[in-house]
């Protein structure tokens, strides 16, 4: 009885409108279907054995526990990046240093793990937090430039991504390079600092638990705390926020700093989970992915994991397809692009879109009727 009440009050509290929910879901579904259709058509064209390619692409990730684990593993950095972007977009900002933050966070975490000797638990925490903090120092620059000088945070953060990348590449190829690796890479990350696998038979590490924890914290931040509430109001309507006495500039910076920090931790977790050495010589792309994830999640923290799992599923399937057939996994880029374009659009499949369709239909019917009457 209590559960039922709670459930009811949940829906009631969020002014659950069945119609809105229905149309939103339908829209997402339509977007996904259209995107898949396009992808399948492309696969049919390029593949010598399309049915097998499509099989691996769609069913592959569920074929066994290991593959399903790959799906989750791919989704974890997307969750980090997605929740990071979610925080930033809540304030209606587009600071894309989440991308650079992944790189910086990963590198710094690796360096802390290698060069600072700490006891087991502390070693992991220090690497994660250190990665996040150093990334935040960088990410603060575009945020502050936006709030005090109105420098477009989008362009400045993208430029900063490249700066961070090349500083990192410089470090791993000159300063912290380990010649034994036979690669431009750091030394080996000690086992003690690594995030361990916590479901045997898969590659899923504690990174998953960390990101789920962060997502819950973000959810609480926005629904239960004053700064979170103020960030949301600032993003929704800056005039209203300013008029009510909210310090808009401070909230704009805060959202970006928080988001960048999360992305930095995400980069650290990625390196500590899946790499022996830090050897990234290009930007990992997760930062941009994060914005994509949060668009699909409608910028709601609790939907971020779902959206990330979906993208993870696409990529895991694409990897399997590439491994088992002759189609490159980058076909997912097309699916992703189409889905975002359609989901983010206001007019595609909105309830008013249906209403217009209906109106058009009625109008045409009336015209027809009039024509008939005239003829008579």
């Amino acid at each position, binding site marked *: 009885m209590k559960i039922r009440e709670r459930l009811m009050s949940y829906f*009631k*509290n*969020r*002014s659950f409108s069945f119609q809105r929910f229905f149309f939103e879901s339908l829209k997402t579904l339509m977007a996904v279907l259209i995107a898949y259709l396009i992808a399948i058509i492309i696969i049919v064209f390029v593949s010598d054995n399309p049915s097998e390619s499509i099989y691996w692409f769609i069913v592959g990730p569920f074929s066994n526990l290991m593959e399903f684990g790959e799906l989750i593993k791919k989704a974890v950095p997307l969750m980090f990046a997605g929740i990071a972007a979610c925080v930033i977009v809540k304030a209606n900002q587009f600071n894309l240093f989440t991308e650079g933050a992944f790189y910086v966070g990963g590198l710094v975490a690796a360096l802390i793990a290698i060069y600072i000797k700490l006891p087991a638990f502390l070693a992991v925490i220090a690497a994660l937090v250190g990665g996040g903090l150093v990334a935040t120092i960088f990410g603060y620059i575009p945020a502050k430039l936006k709030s005090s000088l109105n420098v477009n945070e989008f362009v400045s953060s993208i430029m900063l991504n490249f700066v961070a990348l090349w500083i990192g590449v410089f470090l791993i190829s000159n300063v912290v390079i380990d010649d034994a690796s036979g690669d431009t890479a750091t030394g080996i990350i000690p086992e003690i600092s690594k995030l361990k696998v916590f479901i045997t038979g898969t590659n899923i590490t504690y990174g998953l638990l960390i990101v789920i924890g962060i997502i819950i914290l973000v959810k609480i931040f926005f*629904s*239960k*705390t*004053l*700064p979170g*509430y*103020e960030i*949301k*109001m600032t993003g*929704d*309507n800056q*005039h*209203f*926020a*300013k*008029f*009510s*006495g*909210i*310090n808009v500039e401070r909230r704009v910076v805060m959202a970006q700093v928080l988001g960048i920090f999360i992305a930095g931790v995400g980069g650290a977790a990625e390196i500590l989970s899946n790499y022996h050495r830090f050897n990234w010589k290009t930007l990992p792309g997760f930062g941009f992915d994060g914005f994509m994830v949060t668009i699909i999640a409608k910028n709601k923290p609790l939907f971020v994991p779902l959206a990330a799992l979906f993208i993870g599923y696409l990529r895991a399937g694409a990897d399997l397809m590439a491994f088992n057939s002759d189609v490159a996994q980058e076909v997912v880029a097309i699916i992703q692009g189409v889905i975002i374009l359609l989901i983010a659009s206001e007019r595609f499949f909105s309830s008013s879109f249906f209403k217009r369709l209906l109106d058009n239909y009625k109008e045409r019917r009336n015209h027809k009727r009039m024509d008939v009457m005239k003829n008579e």
Partner: protein
Amino acid sequence: MAEALIMMKDIRKVYYPDIVAINSATFSLFEGEIHAIAGENGAGKTTLMKILFGLEKADKGEVLFRGEKVFFHSPSDAMRKGIGMVHQHFMLLENMTVADNVVLGMEPKRKGLYDYKRACEITKDLGERFDMAIDPEIKISQLAVGLKQKVEIIKVLAREARIIILDEPTAVLTPQETKELFHQLKLLKKDNFTIIIITHKLREIKEICDRVTIMKSGNIEGTYDVDKISVEEISKKMVGYDFVVTEDKETLKPGEVILEVKNLSYERDGKKRLDDISFKIREKQILGVVGVEGNGQLELSGVLNGVIRNYEGDISLDGLSLKNKSILEIRDRGISYIPEDRMVDGANLIGNIYESAIVLKSRDKDYRKGKFLKKKKLSEFTDVLIDSYGVKCNNKYDQVKSLSGGNIQKIVSAREIVEARRILIANQPTRGIDIGAVMTLHEKLKELQSNNLGILLISSDLKEIYDLTESVIVLYEGKIVARIKNIKDVSEEQLGRYMLGIEVQEDMEASL
């Protein structure tokens, strides 16, 4: 006179969801006349003209052009029939030249290229023909308001309009500019142009118009030949209502001075928006500020709220200056504020009711534990607001956007009234909302008053002023032109004369 040039029959317009802009209006226009449409703010004048110009669609009724039924789906349809409109807010490209603006959309070409020289010539010719000489090569941003308006008129003329609608053309003009405008309008009339002026300035109607149509709350009160109706009669029909003496106002004795405004002046775009304004608000006092819109009310409330900071003079609350204080600091001192634009400044339309309701309360230490909001307490607070103001909604998580204007206003005012500790500034608190909501709000304002607060009520609704206030100041072009100690001593007609700048009070009592 013969057949009407334009006939609008039984027009009705309702804005979503339930705001009746025009109830039922029938309006006729004869060729070659200057026709005034007079009425208070919100009477439906502009909406009626927007329907004629194809900017709005009427829900009901029809438009006849020379006896023939027409449908204007967009301004271009109206323009094709020779109708042009000069909007109150100019539609000009600030960084382009006068000539560019005049020919936009009908650019002259030479060898496939834009013929700027020809554009200048067109502009110059039109300007000379109608005595509106203006340098075609000057940028709009460098022009004074009066000249910008001329550009708009030339723009309309260049499109060969024969019927020109001017929306509040003199609202932004100085007396000299107004004189010039009238001279040009007379020239146009001589050329058999037909002109419609939307206005509420009676003197102007008398000066240049042939006929006047008076509108009041969405209805047409009547159309009259200007020389057969007196200014007083127009004024009465425009603002008048049956003066019902409701229950006697409780006469509360004002207490200590709370807010003091001293020699406040503010200038923007080279025009004095506020000119040496001084007044005091005491405890238990509702001070009314009346005036035709655009005479300094917006600026006054902006200064008091902290949005405008570069003013001259001083404002003090309980003896402490508010100069250079931020919005937050001013609010923390106990001033609350019901904004004029509730949709932009007042509420977060895409959020839910709860979010807009708690924006001030959320900072209250009793309602949070450190940085954490006490959601239960805030929810209860929101529920109480909704209940006590009778906000019509399913629950507090409804989207604000889905509510009617009156209900949004209830939420905004409720939030601000609850938070007011010393002063409440209410800027047009009941504009455009239904009578029930008006009653609720008036109750609440009276309650505040008896709780020792001071209220500054900026309103263009005279009934509201008579119902709520005792002392009133009248603003005209940023100046105080009358200080009225007891509003009951002053007739509505008299008040109207002050508001419209026909009369300035002699020996103003400085005590207010």
